[in-house]
Protein backbone atom coordinates (compact mmCIF):
# COMPACT_ATOMS: atom_id res chain seq x y z
CA UNK A 1 0.00 0.00 0.00
CA UNK A 2 2.74 2.43 0.91
CA UNK A 3 4.21 1.93 -2.52
CA UNK A 4 1.30 3.77 -4.06
CA UNK A 5 1.86 7.22 -5.45
CA UNK A 6 1.44 10.16 -3.05
CA UNK A 7 1.23 13.89 -3.53
CA UNK A 8 4.42 15.86 -3.03
CA UNK A 9 4.51 18.58 -0.39
CA UNK A 10 4.15 21.11 -3.20
CA UNK A 11 1.08 19.32 -4.56
CA UNK A 12 -0.53 19.30 -1.11
CA UNK A 13 0.07 23.08 -0.92
CA UNK A 14 -1.38 23.44 -4.42
CA UNK A 15 -4.56 21.65 -3.36
CA UNK A 16 -4.82 23.86 -0.26
CA UNK A 17 -4.77 27.00 -2.37
CA UNK A 18 -8.12 26.00 -3.91
CA UNK A 19 -9.60 26.66 -0.45
CA UNK A 20 -8.29 30.24 -0.42
CA UNK A 21 -10.70 32.74 -1.94
CA UNK A 22 -10.39 36.20 -3.40
CA UNK A 23 -10.07 38.78 -0.62
CA UNK A 24 -9.29 36.23 2.11
CA UNK A 25 -6.93 36.99 4.98
CA UNK A 26 -4.72 33.93 5.38
CA UNK A 27 -2.16 32.85 7.98
CA UNK A 28 0.29 30.15 6.91
CA UNK A 29 2.13 27.97 9.42
CA UNK A 30 5.67 26.68 9.06
CA UNK A 31 6.27 23.77 6.65
CA UNK A 32 3.91 22.77 3.84
CA UNK A 33 1.62 25.82 4.37
CA UNK A 34 4.52 28.14 3.54
CA UNK A 35 4.58 26.63 0.05
CA UNK A 36 1.05 27.85 -0.80
CA UNK A 37 1.58 31.39 -2.18
CA UNK A 38 3.45 30.24 -5.29
CA UNK A 39 0.40 28.24 -6.37
CA UNK A 40 -2.26 30.91 -5.85
CA UNK A 41 -4.30 31.83 -8.89
CA UNK A 42 -2.94 35.29 -9.81
CA UNK A 43 -6.51 36.59 -10.18
CA UNK A 44 -7.05 36.09 -6.45
CA UNK A 45 -6.08 38.79 -3.96
CA UNK A 46 -4.94 37.16 -0.73
CA UNK A 47 -3.78 39.17 2.31
CA UNK A 48 -1.21 37.11 4.18
CA UNK A 49 -0.93 37.68 7.93
CA UNK A 50 1.95 36.59 10.13
CA UNK A 51 2.02 36.51 13.93
CA UNK A 52 5.29 38.44 13.88
CA UNK A 53 3.21 41.57 13.23
CA UNK A 54 2.75 41.99 9.50
CA UNK A 55 -0.23 41.97 7.15
CA UNK A 56 -0.30 41.73 3.37
CA UNK A 57 3.30 40.69 3.00
CA UNK A 58 4.48 39.40 -0.35
CA UNK A 59 7.54 37.60 -1.62
CA UNK A 60 10.48 36.53 0.49
CA UNK A 61 13.28 39.09 0.34
CA UNK A 62 16.00 38.61 -2.20
CA UNK A 63 19.24 37.64 -0.52
CA UNK A 64 20.79 41.08 -0.95
CA UNK A 65 17.85 42.82 0.67
CA UNK A 66 17.31 40.64 3.73
CA UNK A 67 16.44 42.75 6.77
CA UNK A 68 16.27 41.26 10.26
CA UNK A 69 13.54 43.85 10.95
CA UNK A 70 11.05 42.24 8.57
CA UNK A 71 10.39 38.58 9.20
CA UNK A 72 7.49 36.17 9.26
CA UNK A 73 6.79 33.98 12.29
CA UNK A 74 9.24 31.38 11.02
CA UNK A 75 12.08 33.90 10.85
CA UNK A 76 12.13 34.14 7.06
CA UNK A 77 13.01 37.54 5.62
CA UNK A 78 10.15 39.31 3.83
CA UNK A 79 10.37 41.85 1.05
CA UNK A 80 9.63 45.51 1.82
CA UNK A 81 8.02 45.93 -1.57
CA UNK A 82 4.51 44.49 -1.31
CA UNK A 83 2.00 47.30 -1.88
CA UNK A 84 -0.41 47.78 1.01
CA UNK A 85 1.66 45.98 3.64
CA UNK A 86 1.26 47.07 7.26
CA UNK A 87 3.24 46.32 10.43
CA UNK A 88 1.95 46.36 14.02
CA UNK A 89 2.63 45.08 17.51
CA UNK A 90 1.95 41.62 18.96
CA UNK A 91 -1.17 42.61 20.90
CA UNK A 92 -2.71 43.85 17.65
CA UNK A 93 -1.44 40.85 15.69
CA UNK A 94 -3.19 38.46 18.05
CA UNK A 95 -6.27 40.66 18.38
CA UNK A 96 -6.62 39.99 14.66
CA UNK A 97 -6.30 36.24 15.20
CA UNK A 98 -8.36 35.80 18.35
CA UNK A 99 -10.93 38.37 17.20
CA UNK A 100 -11.93 36.29 14.18
CA UNK A 101 -10.37 38.49 11.51
CA UNK A 102 -8.31 35.71 9.87
CA UNK A 103 -10.41 33.94 7.26
CA UNK A 104 -8.19 30.88 6.89
CA UNK A 105 -5.26 29.47 8.84
CA UNK A 106 -3.24 26.63 7.33
CA UNK A 107 -1.20 24.63 9.84
CA UNK A 108 0.61 21.33 10.14
CA UNK A 109 -0.35 18.62 12.65
CA UNK A 110 0.99 15.68 14.64
CA UNK A 111 -2.48 14.28 15.26
CA UNK A 112 -6.08 15.19 14.49
CA UNK A 113 -9.02 13.52 16.19
CA UNK A 114 -12.40 12.88 14.70
CA UNK A 115 -13.83 15.62 16.95
CA UNK A 116 -11.54 18.05 15.15
CA UNK A 117 -9.07 18.32 18.00
CA UNK A 118 -5.61 19.34 16.85
CA UNK A 119 -2.29 18.28 18.38
CA UNK A 120 0.72 20.03 16.89
CA UNK A 121 2.82 21.58 19.65
CA UNK A 122 4.36 18.93 21.84
CA UNK A 123 5.88 15.48 21.40
CA UNK A 124 6.01 13.10 24.32
CA UNK A 125 9.76 12.58 24.17
CA UNK A 126 10.58 16.23 24.86
CA UNK A 127 10.19 18.05 28.13
CA UNK A 128 8.71 21.14 26.46
CA UNK A 129 7.32 22.08 23.10
CA UNK A 130 6.64 25.34 21.34
CA UNK A 131 3.18 26.83 21.30
CA UNK A 132 3.95 30.12 19.60
CA UNK A 133 0.81 31.33 17.86
CA UNK A 134 -0.66 27.89 17.21
CA UNK A 135 -3.20 27.84 20.05
CA UNK A 136 -4.51 31.27 19.06
CA UNK A 137 -4.72 30.37 15.37
CA UNK A 138 -6.40 27.04 16.11
CA UNK A 139 -9.36 28.67 17.86
CA UNK A 140 -9.28 32.10 16.21
CA UNK A 141 -9.25 31.51 12.46
CA UNK A 142 -12.69 31.31 10.84
CA UNK A 143 -11.54 28.22 8.96
CA UNK A 144 -8.68 25.93 9.96
CA UNK A 145 -7.09 23.81 7.26
CA UNK A 146 -4.45 21.21 8.10
CA UNK A 147 -1.87 20.43 5.42
CA UNK A 148 0.20 17.34 6.15
CA UNK A 149 1.28 13.85 5.17
CA UNK A 150 -1.45 11.33 5.95
CA UNK A 151 0.86 9.24 8.16
CA UNK A 152 4.15 10.25 9.75
CA UNK A 153 7.62 9.20 8.59
CA UNK A 154 7.63 6.19 10.89
CA UNK A 155 4.25 5.07 9.58
CA UNK A 156 2.27 6.18 12.63
CA UNK A 157 -1.35 7.07 12.10
CA UNK A 158 -2.11 10.81 12.54
CA UNK A 159 -5.88 10.79 12.05
CA UNK A 160 -7.06 9.23 15.30
CA UNK A 161 -10.12 8.63 17.44
CA UNK A 162 -8.56 10.55 20.31
CA UNK A 163 -5.31 12.52 20.40
CA UNK A 164 -2.67 10.91 22.62
CA UNK A 165 -0.49 14.02 22.37
CA UNK A 166 -1.37 17.26 24.20
CA UNK A 167 -3.87 19.18 22.11
CA UNK A 168 -3.47 22.67 20.65
CA UNK A 169 -7.17 23.32 20.28
CA UNK A 170 -10.47 21.57 20.75
CA UNK A 171 -12.93 20.96 17.89
CA UNK A 172 -11.11 23.47 15.71
CA UNK A 173 -10.10 21.62 12.52
CA UNK A 174 -12.35 22.09 9.48
CA UNK A 175 -10.48 20.58 6.55
CA UNK A 176 -7.53 18.20 6.22
CA UNK A 177 -5.51 18.06 3.03
CA UNK A 178 -3.07 15.14 2.99
CA UNK A 179 -0.90 13.51 0.37
CA UNK A 180 -3.70 11.06 -0.48
CA UNK A 181 -7.02 12.62 0.54
CA UNK A 182 -9.11 15.63 1.41
CA UNK A 183 -11.17 15.13 4.53
CA UNK A 184 -13.65 17.47 6.17
CA UNK A 185 -14.68 17.31 9.77
CA UNK A 186 -18.45 17.62 9.98
CA UNK A 187 -20.41 16.98 13.16
CA UNK A 188 -17.39 15.28 14.72
CA UNK A 189 -17.02 12.86 11.85
CA UNK A 190 -14.26 12.60 9.26
CA UNK A 191 -15.87 12.88 5.85
CA UNK A 192 -13.79 11.72 2.88
CA UNK A 193 -14.35 14.29 0.13
CA UNK A 194 -11.51 13.65 -2.30
CA UNK A 195 -9.11 10.80 -2.90
CA UNK A 196 -5.87 10.50 -4.86
CA UNK A 197 -6.19 8.47 -8.09
CA UNK A 198 -4.84 4.96 -7.52
CA UNK A 199 -6.07 4.87 -3.92
CA UNK A 200 -9.24 3.07 -2.92
CA UNK A 201 -11.45 4.05 0.00
CA UNK A 202 -10.27 1.00 1.90
CA UNK A 203 -6.63 2.00 1.33
CA UNK A 204 -7.26 5.35 2.96
CA UNK A 205 -9.32 3.80 5.76
CA UNK A 206 -6.45 1.44 6.61
CA UNK A 207 -4.24 4.38 7.61
CA UNK A 208 -7.04 6.38 9.23
CA UNK A 209 -8.20 5.31 12.68
CA UNK A 210 -11.72 6.83 12.76
CA UNK A 211 -14.34 5.26 10.53
CA UNK A 212 -14.49 7.50 7.47
CA UNK A 213 -17.83 8.74 6.21
CA UNK A 214 -17.74 8.68 2.42
CA UNK A 215 -19.12 11.83 0.82
CA UNK A 216 -21.78 10.98 -1.72
CA UNK A 217 -19.94 13.19 -4.20
CA UNK A 218 -16.52 11.66 -3.50
CA UNK A 219 -14.12 12.94 -6.14
CA UNK A 220 -10.58 12.54 -7.26
CA UNK A 221 -8.27 15.18 -5.80
CA UNK A 222 -8.40 18.16 -8.12
CA UNK A 223 -5.19 20.16 -8.36
Amino acid at each position, binding site marked *: MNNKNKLSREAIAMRVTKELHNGNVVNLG*IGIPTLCPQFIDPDKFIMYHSESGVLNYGEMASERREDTNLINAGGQYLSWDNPGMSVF*DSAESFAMIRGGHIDVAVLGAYQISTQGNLANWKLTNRKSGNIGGAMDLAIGAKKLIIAMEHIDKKGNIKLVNKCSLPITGSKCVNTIVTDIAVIEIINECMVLKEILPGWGIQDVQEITEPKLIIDKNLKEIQL
Partner: protein
Amino acid sequence: MTNYSKIYKSTHEAIKDIPDNSSIMIDGFGAGPGGTPQNLIKGLKKIGSKNLIIIGNTAGITMATGIGIKEGSKDIDISILIDNNQVKKIIASYPVAPSPSILTSFEKAFNKNEIELELVPQGTLAERIRAGGAGIPAFYTPTGVKTELANNKESRIINNKEYILEYALKADYALLKSHKSDKIGNLIYKGTSRNFNAVMASAANITIVESEIILETGEIDPHHIHTPAIYINRIVKSYE
Protein backbone atom coordinates in the same frame (compact mmCIF):
# COMPACT_ATOMS: atom_id res chain seq x y z
CA MET B 1 11.03 73.19 28.26
CA THR B 2 11.97 70.71 25.59
CA ASN B 3 15.52 70.18 26.82
CA TYR B 4 14.10 67.54 29.13
CA SER B 5 15.97 64.35 28.42
CA LYS B 6 15.79 60.73 29.52
CA ILE B 7 19.06 59.83 27.82
CA TYR B 8 21.67 57.95 29.83
CA LYS B 9 25.34 58.23 29.05
CA SER B 10 25.94 54.51 28.76
CA THR B 11 24.25 51.16 28.75
CA HIS B 12 25.83 50.48 32.11
CA GLU B 13 24.42 53.64 33.68
CA ALA B 14 20.95 52.81 32.36
CA ILE B 15 20.77 49.33 33.88
CA LYS B 16 23.23 49.19 36.76
CA ASP B 17 20.50 49.33 39.43
CA ILE B 18 18.72 46.16 38.26
CA PRO B 19 18.86 44.02 41.40
CA ASP B 20 18.81 40.27 41.92
CA ASN B 21 15.34 38.69 41.77
CA SER B 22 14.02 41.21 39.25
CA SER B 23 11.39 40.33 36.68
CA ILE B 24 12.44 41.64 33.28
CA MET B 25 10.56 41.78 29.98
CA ILE B 26 12.91 41.53 27.02
CA ASP B 27 11.68 41.76 23.46
CA GLY B 28 12.99 39.94 20.54
CA PHE B 29 10.33 37.99 18.74
CA GLY B 30 13.02 35.34 18.88
CA ALA B 31 13.04 34.32 15.25
CA GLY B 32 16.12 36.39 14.54
CA PRO B 33 17.69 39.40 16.22
CA GLY B 34 15.14 42.01 15.08
CA GLY B 35 13.89 44.02 18.02
CA THR B 36 16.26 42.41 20.52
CA PRO B 37 18.02 44.91 22.83
CA GLN B 38 21.37 43.18 22.48
CA ASN B 39 23.44 45.85 24.21
CA LEU B 40 21.14 45.94 27.23
CA ILE B 41 21.31 42.13 27.44
CA LYS B 42 25.12 42.24 27.29
CA GLY B 43 25.09 44.94 29.96
CA LEU B 44 22.86 42.80 32.13
CA LYS B 45 25.34 39.96 31.82
CA LYS B 46 28.13 42.32 32.90
CA ILE B 47 26.34 43.52 36.05
CA GLY B 48 25.51 39.91 36.80
CA SER B 49 22.14 40.24 38.58
CA LYS B 50 20.93 36.79 39.65
CA ASN B 51 17.66 34.90 40.03
CA LEU B 52 16.00 36.83 37.26
CA ILE B 53 12.58 36.09 35.80
CA ILE B 54 12.74 36.78 32.06
CA ILE B 55 9.53 37.35 30.12
CA GLY B 56 9.75 37.13 26.33
CA ASN B 57 8.43 35.34 23.27
CA THR B 58 11.23 32.76 23.16
CA ALA B 59 13.70 31.55 25.74
CA GLY B 60 16.55 32.43 23.39
CA ILE B 61 16.62 30.30 20.24
CA THR B 62 18.42 32.56 17.78
CA MET B 63 22.03 31.84 18.76
CA ALA B 64 21.66 28.06 18.80
CA THR B 65 19.52 27.67 15.68
CA GLY B 66 20.71 30.51 13.50
CA ILE B 67 17.08 31.26 12.63
CA GLY B 68 16.77 34.74 11.19
CA ILE B 69 20.40 35.71 11.66
CA LYS B 70 22.88 36.34 8.93
CA GLU B 71 25.96 34.26 8.39
CA GLY B 72 28.90 35.35 10.49
CA SER B 73 26.77 37.65 12.67
CA LYS B 74 27.67 38.20 16.29
CA ASP B 75 24.02 38.49 17.30
CA ILE B 76 23.24 37.35 20.82
CA ASP B 77 20.04 36.59 22.70
CA ILE B 78 19.10 35.89 26.32
CA SER B 79 20.96 32.56 26.14
CA ILE B 80 24.03 34.45 27.40
CA LEU B 81 22.17 35.23 30.64
CA ILE B 82 21.09 31.61 31.03
CA ASP B 83 24.65 30.40 30.40
CA ASN B 84 25.80 32.86 33.06
CA ASN B 85 23.38 31.33 35.59
CA GLN B 86 21.43 34.56 36.01
CA VAL B 87 17.96 33.26 35.18
CA LYS B 88 15.72 31.25 37.48
CA LYS B 89 12.54 31.34 35.39
CA ILE B 90 11.40 31.99 31.85
CA ILE B 91 7.89 32.99 30.77
CA ALA B 92 7.62 32.37 27.02
CA SER B 93 5.52 30.94 24.18
CA TYR B 94 8.28 29.39 22.08
CA PRO B 95 10.96 28.20 24.51
CA VAL B 96 12.89 25.57 22.55
CA ALA B 97 14.38 25.14 19.08
CA PRO B 98 11.91 23.95 16.43
CA SER B 99 14.09 20.91 15.82
CA PRO B 100 14.56 18.59 18.83
CA SER B 101 18.10 17.91 17.62
CA ILE B 102 19.26 21.43 18.53
CA LEU B 103 19.57 22.12 22.24
CA THR B 104 19.45 25.78 23.25
CA SER B 105 20.98 27.07 26.49
CA PHE B 106 17.49 27.13 27.92
CA GLU B 107 16.62 23.56 26.98
CA LYS B 108 19.89 22.24 28.40
CA ALA B 109 19.22 23.96 31.71
CA PHE B 110 15.55 22.99 31.64
CA ASN B 111 16.34 19.32 31.04
CA LYS B 112 18.56 19.44 34.14
CA ASN B 113 15.79 21.17 36.12
CA GLU B 114 18.01 24.20 36.63
CA ILE B 115 15.47 26.66 35.30
CA GLU B 116 11.69 27.04 35.51
CA LEU B 117 9.33 27.55 32.60
CA GLU B 118 5.89 29.11 32.39
CA LEU B 119 4.58 28.32 28.94
CA VAL B 120 2.02 30.80 27.56
CA PRO B 121 0.42 30.92 24.10
CA GLN B 122 1.86 33.85 22.14
CA GLY B 123 -1.40 35.78 21.89
CA THR B 124 -2.16 35.25 25.56
CA LEU B 125 1.36 36.42 26.42
CA ALA B 126 0.88 39.61 24.38
CA GLU B 127 -2.57 40.19 25.86
CA ARG B 128 -1.45 39.55 29.46
CA ILE B 129 1.38 42.06 29.03
CA ARG B 130 -0.94 44.60 27.41
CA ALA B 131 -3.39 44.09 30.28
CA GLY B 132 -0.58 44.69 32.76
CA GLY B 133 0.16 48.03 31.16
CA ALA B 134 -3.50 48.96 30.70
CA GLY B 135 -4.75 48.44 34.26
CA ILE B 136 -6.79 45.35 33.39
CA PRO B 137 -6.03 42.76 36.10
CA ALA B 138 -7.56 39.76 34.33
CA PHE B 139 -9.53 38.79 31.24
CA TYR B 140 -11.24 35.81 29.67
CA THR B 141 -9.86 34.26 26.50
CA PRO B 142 -10.78 31.35 24.22
CA THR B 143 -7.11 30.45 23.63
CA GLY B 144 -6.00 27.28 25.39
CA VAL B 145 -9.47 26.08 26.37
CA LYS B 146 -9.49 22.29 26.96
CA THR B 147 -5.70 22.08 26.50
CA GLU B 148 -3.30 21.14 29.28
CA LEU B 149 -2.61 24.87 29.76
CA ALA B 150 -6.17 25.22 31.03
CA ASN B 151 -5.49 22.87 33.93
CA ASN B 152 -5.90 24.74 37.21
CA LYS B 153 -7.35 27.76 35.44
CA GLU B 154 -10.82 29.09 36.02
CA SER B 155 -13.15 28.58 33.13
CA ARG B 156 -16.45 30.23 32.36
CA ILE B 157 -19.18 29.98 29.75
CA ILE B 158 -20.07 33.31 28.12
CA ASN B 159 -22.71 33.31 25.37
CA ASN B 160 -22.48 29.51 25.10
CA LYS B 161 -18.74 29.43 24.54
CA GLU B 162 -16.05 28.38 26.99
CA TYR B 163 -13.25 30.72 28.04
CA ILE B 164 -10.44 30.65 30.59
CA LEU B 165 -9.36 33.41 32.93
CA GLU B 166 -5.88 34.83 32.43
CA TYR B 167 -4.14 37.38 34.66
CA ALA B 168 -2.13 40.46 33.74
CA LEU B 169 1.65 40.28 33.58
CA LYS B 170 3.82 43.11 34.83
CA ALA B 171 7.55 43.35 35.40
CA ASP B 172 10.08 45.37 37.34
CA TYR B 173 11.93 46.28 34.14
CA ALA B 174 11.39 46.16 30.41
CA LEU B 175 14.34 46.24 28.03
CA LEU B 176 13.43 47.43 24.54
CA LYS B 177 15.02 48.06 21.19
CA SER B 178 13.77 50.84 18.93
CA HIS B 179 14.81 52.22 15.58
CA LYS B 180 14.33 55.86 16.58
CA SER B 181 13.76 57.68 19.84
CA ASP B 182 13.58 61.36 20.64
CA LYS B 183 15.02 62.64 23.92
CA ILE B 184 11.79 62.19 25.88
CA GLY B 185 11.22 58.65 24.60
CA ASN B 186 8.78 58.79 21.70
CA LEU B 187 9.68 55.63 19.80
CA ILE B 188 9.55 54.35 16.23
CA TYR B 189 10.27 50.70 15.50
CA LYS B 190 11.25 49.21 12.18
CA GLY B 191 9.07 46.54 10.55
CA THR B 192 8.22 43.52 12.64
CA SER B 193 10.70 44.56 15.33
CA ARG B 194 7.80 46.41 16.91
CA ASN B 195 6.03 43.25 17.97
CA PHE B 196 6.54 42.66 21.70
CA ASN B 197 8.56 45.87 22.22
CA ALA B 198 5.53 48.11 21.86
CA VAL B 199 3.49 45.95 24.23
CA MET B 200 6.15 45.53 26.92
CA ALA B 201 6.86 49.27 27.00
CA SER B 202 3.78 49.92 29.14
CA ALA B 203 3.96 46.98 31.53
CA ALA B 204 7.12 47.55 33.56
CA ASN B 205 7.90 49.81 36.46
CA ILE B 206 11.02 51.00 34.67
CA THR B 207 11.24 50.80 30.89
CA ILE B 208 14.66 51.15 29.29
CA VAL B 209 15.14 51.42 25.54
CA GLU B 210 18.21 51.18 23.36
CA SER B 211 17.65 53.09 20.15
CA GLU B 212 19.58 52.95 16.91
CA ILE B 213 18.94 56.62 16.24
CA ILE B 214 18.37 59.39 18.78
CA LEU B 215 16.59 62.52 17.58
CA GLU B 216 15.82 65.90 19.06
CA THR B 217 12.39 66.11 20.63
CA GLY B 218 10.08 67.49 17.97
CA GLU B 219 11.73 65.74 15.04
CA ILE B 220 9.08 62.99 14.88
CA ASP B 221 5.64 63.61 13.35
CA PRO B 222 3.06 63.04 16.13
CA HIS B 223 1.21 60.63 13.80
CA HIS B 224 4.23 58.38 13.30
CA ILE B 225 5.01 57.60 16.93
CA HIS B 226 4.50 53.93 17.82
CA THR B 227 5.23 54.14 21.56
CA PRO B 228 4.43 57.49 23.23
CA ALA B 229 7.02 58.90 25.63
CA ILE B 230 4.77 58.32 28.65
CA TYR B 231 5.98 54.72 28.84
CA ILE B 232 9.72 55.31 28.60
CA ASN B 233 11.99 56.00 31.57
CA ARG B 234 15.54 55.66 30.22
CA ILE B 235 17.11 55.82 26.78
CA VAL B 236 20.54 54.77 25.56
CA LYS B 237 22.12 54.83 22.16
CA SER B 238 22.42 51.38 20.62
CA TYR B 239 25.90 50.68 19.28
CA GLU B 240 26.84 47.89 16.89
